C-alpha cells in the first residue's frame, strides 16, 4: 500500500529529450567554440528559511524542523518542503545485490552479497541549475562541506576561467541552455560536498545497483539487467549507440525509468557512488588507480559497449577526476523522512 502510494507520486513529466530531439549543445569548451550563454544569477530571499527553501536545501530545513516551525510562515514552508521531497525522491525497497569482485565480472564469478535497507533516491541526477545554487552560495569555500584531506586541493577545483565550479563552466556560471542537463565535470569530492550542503548523501554502490536492478525482496527472484527490463533499448537511454553524442536533459528518456520512476540510471552520465572502487583480476590480484578511485555506475552518453551500461557493471574513476561524462544524484535514509513512513 505504502509502495503504491509512493511510486504513484512520481509520474514522470512528458519526455522532452527523446532520441529525435534537437541535439543539446556540448559545453562550449568541448565544442572548441566560444559560444556560451551564462546562466543569470538567482536573487535570493532575505528570509533565512525562504532562502534555504529556494536553494533546495530541504533536508537542512528538516534537520531543524522544530526551530523553523515557529518561524513566520514556517509551518507552510515545512509542508512544502516535505511535498517537494516526496516529488523529487523515490523509495527504493529493501533487497540484496551481488557486487562482482573481479574485473571480468562474469556471471558465476566471485560476488559480494550486500543487503540494502530501503532508502530514498533522487528521481533525477543533479542538474546544472541546482548545482549553481551551491556554487553561488559559496559552497566551494564552505569547509564544512569538504573533508579535510581535500582542503589543499580545493583551489584546483576551478572552471575554465579559474572560478570555483565544475570544470566546463565559465566565470562560475553554467551555460543557460544546459540548465536542466546533469552537472558534469565534478569530482567525487564535489558531488559529496553538494550532498552535504543540501543535507543528503551519495548513494552507496549497493544502493545504486539495487535501484537499477530492482532486486527487491519478493517471491519472484528477479534482477533486471536494465532499469526497464532485460533487453537493451537505445530509445530508453542515452549511450554511444543512441547517437545523441552529448548529455540530455535529466527528464529525458522517461521510458527508461525504473519501476519507481527514477530516470537515467543507465546512460546519460556516469554517477558517482559513495564507495571506493576495488576489484581484482581473475587471479585475485588488486587492480588500482594511480590514486584512490571511487565507484561510478550506469554508463554515459559516450559509453561504447552496451555491456558497460547495465545495472551490474562496476567501474571506477579517480576521485579527483572531473570528466565530461560524470555526474551524480543524491540519496537519503528512509529514517530521515518519517512523514513518508508514517512515523
Amino acid at each position, binding site marked *: 500500500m505504502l509502495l503504491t502510494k509512493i511510486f504513484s507520486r512520481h509520474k514522470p513529466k512528458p519526455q522532452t529529450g527523446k532520441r529525435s530531439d534537437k541535439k543539446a549543445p556540448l559545453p562550449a569548451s568541448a565544442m572548441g567554440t566560444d559560444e556560451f550563454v551564462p546562466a543569470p544569477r538567482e536573487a535570493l530571499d532575505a528570509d533565512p528559511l525562504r532562502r534555504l527553501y529556494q536553494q533546495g536545501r530541504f533536508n537542512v530545513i528538516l534537520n531543524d524542523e522544530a526551530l523553523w516551525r515557529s518561524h513566520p510562515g514556517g509551518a507552510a514552508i515545512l509542508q512544502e518542503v516535505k511535498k517537494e521531497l516526496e516529488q523529487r525522491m523515490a523509495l527504493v525497497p529493501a533487497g540484496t545485490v551481488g557486487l562482482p569482485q573481479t574485473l571480468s565480472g562474469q556471471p558465476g564469478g566471485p560476488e559480494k552479497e550486500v543487503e540494502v535497507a530501503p532508502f530514498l533516491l533522487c528521481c533525477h541526477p543533479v542538474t546544472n541549475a541546482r548545482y549553481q545554487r551551491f556554487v553561488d552560495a559559496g559552497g566551494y569555500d564552505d569547509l564544512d562541506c569538504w573533508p579535510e584531506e581535500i582542503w589543499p586541493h580545493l583551489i584546483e577545483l576551478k572552471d575554465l576561467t579559474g572560478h570555483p565550479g565544475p570544470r566546463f563552466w565559465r566565470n562560475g556560471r553554467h551555460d543557460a541552455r544546459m540548465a536542466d542537463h546533469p552537472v558534469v565535470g565534478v569530482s567525487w569530492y564535489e558531488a559529496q560536498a553538494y550532498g552535504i550542503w543540501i543535507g543528503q548523501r551519495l548513494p552507496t554502490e549497493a544502493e545504486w545497483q539495487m535501484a537499477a536492478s530492482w532486486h527487491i525482496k519478493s517471491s519472484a527472484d528477479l534482477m533486471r539487467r536494465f532499469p526497464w527490463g532485460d533487453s537493451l533499448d537505445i530509445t530508453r537511454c542515452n549511450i554511444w549507440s543512441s547517437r545523441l553524442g552529448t548529455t540530455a536533459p535529466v527528464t529525458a528518456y522517461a521510458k527508461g525509468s525504473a519501476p519507481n520512476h527514477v530516470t537515467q540510471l543507465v546512460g546519460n552520465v556516469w554517477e558517482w557512488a559513495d564507495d571506493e572502487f576495488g576489484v581484482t583480476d581473475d587471479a585475485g590480484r588488486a587492480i588500482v588507480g594511480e590514486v584512490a578511485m571511487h565507484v561510478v555506475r550506469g554508463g554515459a552518453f559516450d559509453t561504447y559497449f552496451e555491456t*558497460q551500461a547495465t545495472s551490474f557493471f562496476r567501474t571506477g574513476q579517480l576521485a579527483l577526476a572531473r570528466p565530461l*561524462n560524470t555526474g551524480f544524484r543524491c540519496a537519503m535514509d528512509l529514517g530521515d523522512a518519517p512523514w513518508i513512513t508514517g512515523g
Partner: protein
Amino acid sequence: MTTATEPMRPMTSMPCLICETQNPAESLVCTNCFAPMALIQEAVAQDRDPCIVTVIGDSNVGKTVYLGMLLDMLSKRADDFDALPKGAYSVNLQHNVISHLSARQFPPKTAMEVDQWLWAYYQVARRKRGARIYDLVMPDMAGEAIAAEVATPRTFAVIRSLMEKSAGAILLVDGALAAAGSPQPDFFALKLISYMDGVLALKHGEKLDTPVAVVLSKADHCPDCFENPRLFAQTNLNRLWNICETRFRHYEFFAASVVGSLGYGTDEYNNVIPYPLHVAPRGIMEPFEWVLSKL
C-alpha cells in the same frame, strides 16, 4: 587439349599494391612486403585507385587501439559514414581490438614481424547520394618496426613503400607523456617527419602535400589536450609544432582517447599491467574526417 609434352603456361603474376613486387597470382601474401594478396586482388577489381592512409607513431602510443576503434566506429556508421570491409581479413584488426577492450584488456602489442601485421581494406563513403567513395587501405604497423626503419632506413622496406604511397597520414603522439614533460614524443615525431622528408625527397623550403593529422593520443590523461590541441602542441611539443609548420602544407592537431578510466594491476612477474576499466571514445573520428576531406 593439352598434352604432357606441351610446356606449362607461364604463371600469371600480379604487382603488389604497396611495394610493386611481382607476385604469383596464387600467393596469399606479397613475397616482399607481406601485404595480403587478397587486398591487391580486391584493389584490382575496383575501378578506383585505393588510398593508403597510414597510422604512424612511436611504440605504445595507441596505434592499434586507435585504428581498431576507428574501423569499428565506421562499421557502426559513426558520423553518418558507411564502411564496407573488403574481405574478412579486413575485419580482423577491429575484431581483435574490440574483443580485448570489451573484456577490459588492451590488445597485445603488434608484432614487429611484417607477416604478422593486420591490414584493413575498407570502402568508405558518407551516407548521402553522390558522396565520394574512398577505398582505404590501412595497415596496423608495429611501432618498433617504424622506429627501426626511421633509425635505419630500409630495415623495413614495406614502411618506406607505405610512406611513399600514403595519400594521408594520422600521426599519433602520446599526449599523456608530453603533458608529463617527457621529451620522447616530441623527439620521435621529429625523427619521423625528418624520415618522411627523406623518403619523399623534399627540397629545402618545399612543403609536403600529404595531409597529416597529428593526434594527441591518451588525451583522457591530460584534459588540456582536448581543450585546445593546437595550443597544447605548440606549448608541449614545440619541436613537432615547428617542423609541421615548416614541412607540411596540410596539417592539423587533434586530441583523442579511447579509455574512460584506467586501472593498474600486476602479472605473476610483478610487471604493471594497465586495464581499460571502461571505454568512452572521444576524438576518434575527427582526424580521420579531416584527412578524408583533404584527399
